[in-house]
């Protein structure tokens, strides 16, 4: 596609509910990243994939967070038993070259998660 597509655009979840956020990266981009952005803050790194391999998950805040990219393209970020502190915008980014050397990272518009 022309850009990174994320769905849903908005998600309201009741506390304790499980949610799944989807990211469609740009075709051919091997690197895929997930970030969490709280209101008024910068994006915080969550996890990184190179093709289907999850190479870094050091930013995942707890074991309730799980990400996968089984076929090296679409990725899903799953949050189990959501808590109010999980409320944030979740951003996905993809990159053609390592470190964004050619054109930086391309970000999607994000999924705004609100836990009530």
């Amino acid at each position: 596609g022309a850009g990174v597509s994320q769905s849903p655009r908005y998600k309201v979840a009741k506390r304790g509910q499980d949610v799944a956020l989807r990211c469609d990266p740009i075709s051919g981009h091997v690197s895929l990243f997930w970030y969490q952005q709280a209101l008024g803050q910068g994006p915080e790194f969550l996890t990184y994939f190179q093709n289907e391999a999850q190479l870094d998950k050091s930013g995942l805040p707890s074991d309730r967070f799980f990400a996968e990219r089984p076929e090296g393209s679409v990725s899903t970020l799953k949050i189990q038993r959501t808590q109010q502190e999980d409320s944030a915008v979740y951003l996905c980014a993809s990159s053609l070259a390592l470190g964004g050397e050619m054109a930086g990272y391309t970000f999607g518009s994000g999924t705004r998660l609100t836990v009530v």
Partner: protein
Amino acid sequence: SQQGEEDPQALSIQEGENATMNCSYKTSINNLQWYRQNSGRGLVHLILIRSNEREKHSGRLRVTLDTSKKSSSLLITASRAADTASYFCAPLTGGGNKLTFGTGTQLKVEL
């Protein structure tokens, strides 16, 4: 934890003026990137400067990098109202894969 830290946190200027934003970071980097974020939208890549470069230009943007001081600056010349946005610096660390962001500079360009 945030790697890049921008200064100032907020900046308000008149259209046509230049805007300068500064960034400091903590560890060695592979490159440093600047991004813009409009309210409620995703981040847009502006410019990338490699660790062995000192200055780079792209249109009305000028970026400098001082690795000895672990700092960078972004200059936007002849600002326009459409430049109103949050600007983030993002040092590339973690073996060359992890882009980390500060809290950003909120730029407001008034007519």
